[in-house]
């Protein structure tokens, strides 16, 4: 049974992401149709397939161009870093421009396209080509008028290509109701890929979709792709698994009290942190703190600013005592400031990927996410951010994103404009607290996965030495912040002082009482001492008299010659 599962042999395209979607590449030895409207990247995709085949998979290729001359093509793809001249010289690629000029051609009866076959066969055999691109074979229909012959010959051509065993790409312009203008999908039916270049809300984005792929499973979604100086990159969002390793390492947030709130140690490394809040609640300041703390530890920070220029950020942060320019000079902090509307989302994403790969930061900051939302593209923004966050997690980069909360207040604050809350590991909410005619800032941790975190609201102060978090006043008066908190604190202080004074007074009174009592005790005891001394004197004298009496009695007895023992008498006398 396992044999039945064996997949079709495939020719890897080498194009980033496309091989993931198609499960390994295009069907080997079969033709694939790539269609799309003008300017959607058909020729480039086909060319990259050939060049990568020639350079990475040792499969030489033939490019038969019906629209562009060899010279134009070489120049055009040179901008993508493909050196066609060199590849042609090394016999890795053959470029053949097929020139059809209707005004030069006179049809005079039955003909066939054997000339094309001979040309193609000759080109394939000259370098042992394994890959063939026909771009765009529909041009034949413009040059030759006999459709019957053309269709029959095309059918023969594709069969012939299969027999030759070459992996072929046929490109075609999209038609009104059919995939291609001339219905090429009728002949090439093993694999059909549709490219699309659409503009919504003035921002263009490119899409790729595998419409069909005989004998193989494939991703069926529309995948965004882009063309830049490294060729084509397709982003398969669904094929990225949740396989990243979670780190237990913690990194400080730059605000000591915030670290305490986050279980005492700060964010997890490689986690995604979201700071959301209303305008002017200090989101960027928290981000700047984090950037500075990270630089201080000697790690690199990549800061994507979509609202302010780097110098504006540095100036503004200096006002709350965060000095960033020296880290920029030391090369630990790098700003990338662009307007989000400058390019499409995919370009932003790749731009970020590239910057990350070059700079290799430990922390990446995006300020703010909302700017990507233009019009109705929330779904795309969410999927782009999902890909970005997955990428960051794979690379163990801590991502800190700021997000402007929408709406007036209340429960709406718990929504992000870009619906990414489920992707976020640690979510800090900065909110306004309006009491007593003033606005104050409060910070609360909405969630923080995998750590014990504080559930308390902290008052958030922007001071000239950075962000400070204070306990809010919680008492019978409710939650107080700002000057209300200060007033309440002052009042409490006054009350405390009064109480303290009363206590002191009582203590003094008590002390005095004790002193008086002690004096009395001393007098009485002195009196007692005097009486005791007097009594003792009397007792002493009486005893002495008694002794004397006894002695006299003994002396008297002796003188009377009494025979009584003195000892006994002594005992009796006791």
């Amino acid at each position, binding site marked *: 049974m396992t044999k039945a599962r064996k997949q079709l042999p495939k020719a890897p395209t080498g194009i980033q992401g496309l091989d993931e979607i198609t499960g390994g590449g295009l069907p080997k030895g079969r033709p694939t149709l790539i269609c799309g409207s003008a300017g959607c990247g058909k020729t480039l995709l086909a060319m990259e397939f050939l060049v990568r085949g020639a350079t990475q998979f040792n499969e030489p290729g033939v490019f038969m161009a019906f629209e562009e001359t060899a010279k134009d093509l070489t120049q055009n793809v040179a901008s993508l870093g493909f050196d066609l001249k060199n590849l042609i010289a090394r016999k890795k690629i053959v470029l053949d421009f097929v020139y059809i000029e209707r005004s030069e051609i006179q049809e005079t009866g039955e003909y066939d396209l054997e000339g094309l076959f*001979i040309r193609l066969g000759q080109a394939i055999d000259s370098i042992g080509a394994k890959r063939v691109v026909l771009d765009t074979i529909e041009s034949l229909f413009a040059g030759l008028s006999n459709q019957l012959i053309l269709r029959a010959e095309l059918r023969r051509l594709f069969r012939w290509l299969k027999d030759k065993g070459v992996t072929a790409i046929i490109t075609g312009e999209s038609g009104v109701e059919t995939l291609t203008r001339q219905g090429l999908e009728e002949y090439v039916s093993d694999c059909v890929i549709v490219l699309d270049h659409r503009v919504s809300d003035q921002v263009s984005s490119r899409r790729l979709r595998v419409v069909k792929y005989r004998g193989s499973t494939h991703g069926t979604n529309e995948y965004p792709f882009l063309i830049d100086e490294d060729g084509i990159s397709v982003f398969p969002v669904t094929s990225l698994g949740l396989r990243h390793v979670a780190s237990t390492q913690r990194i400080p947030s730059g605000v000591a009290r915030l670290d305490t709130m986050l279980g005492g140690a700060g964010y997890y490394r490689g986690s995604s942190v979201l700071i959301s809040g209303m305008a002017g609640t200090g989101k960027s300041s928290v981000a700047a703190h984090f950037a500075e703390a990270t630089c201080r530890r000697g790690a690199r920070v990549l800061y994507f600013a979509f609202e302010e220029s780097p110098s504006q950020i540095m100036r503004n942060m200096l006002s709350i005592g965060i000095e960033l320019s020296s880290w920029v000079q030391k090369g630990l902090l790098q700003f990338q400031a662009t307007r989000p509307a400058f390019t499409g989302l995919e370009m932003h994403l790749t731009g970020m990927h590239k910057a990350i790969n070059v700079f290799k930061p430990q922390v990446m900051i995006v300020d703010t996410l909302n700017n990507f939302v233009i019009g109705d593209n929330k779904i795309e923004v969410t999927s782009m951010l999902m890909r970005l966050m997955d990428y960051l997690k794979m690379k163990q980069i801590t991502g800190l994103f700021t997000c402007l909360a929408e709406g007036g207040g209340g429960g709406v604050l718990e929504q992000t404009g870009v619906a990414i809350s489920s992707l976020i590991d640690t979510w800090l909410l900065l909110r306004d607290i309006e009491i007593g005619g003033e606005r104050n800032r409060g910070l609360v941790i909405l969630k923080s996965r995998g750590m014990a975190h504080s559930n308390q609201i902290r008052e958030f102060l922007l001071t000239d030495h950075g962000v400070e978090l204070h306990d809010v006043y919680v008492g019978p008066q409710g939650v107080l912040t700002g000057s209300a908190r200060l007033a309440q604190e002052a009042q409490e202080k006054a009350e405390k002082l009064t109480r303290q004074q009363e206590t002191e007074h009582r203590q003094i009174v008590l002390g005095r009482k004790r002193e008086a009592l002690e004096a009395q005790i001393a007098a009485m005891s002195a009196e007692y001492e005097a009486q005791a001394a007097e009594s003792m004197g009397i007792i002493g004298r009486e005893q002495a008299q008694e002794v004397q009496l006894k002695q006299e009695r003994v002396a008297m007895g002796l003188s009377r010659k009494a025979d009584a023992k003195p000892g006994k008498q002594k005992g009796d006398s006791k």
Partner: protein
Amino acid sequence: MKTNPAEPKYTPPEPRPAKLKSDTFVLRLYVAGQTLKSLIALTNIKKICEENLKGRYVLDVIDLYQQPRLAQGEQIIALPTLIKKLPPPLRRIIGDMSNTECVLVGLDLQMKV
């Protein structure tokens, strides 16, 4: 000019020496093997040339199976193709030359109707 279709003769693609008269037609017929289509085309074009250009034409027949490299250089797609090298402008006449009128138009011997 005599050409045996059974043994297509190689003719160098360079233009004939300048001794040709200025109004000489230099024609080249490209075919692929000796298919029926090739033979019909050759018969037809020879007939047309004899009738219209007697004595002032040169016709070479080239079998692309023998010289496949020429297909790219001469920008050949369809076969059979007759290329009118001289006099200018260059023309390509494709097909089996069964439509004499079209061939004459192609050779600039007759205005398009």
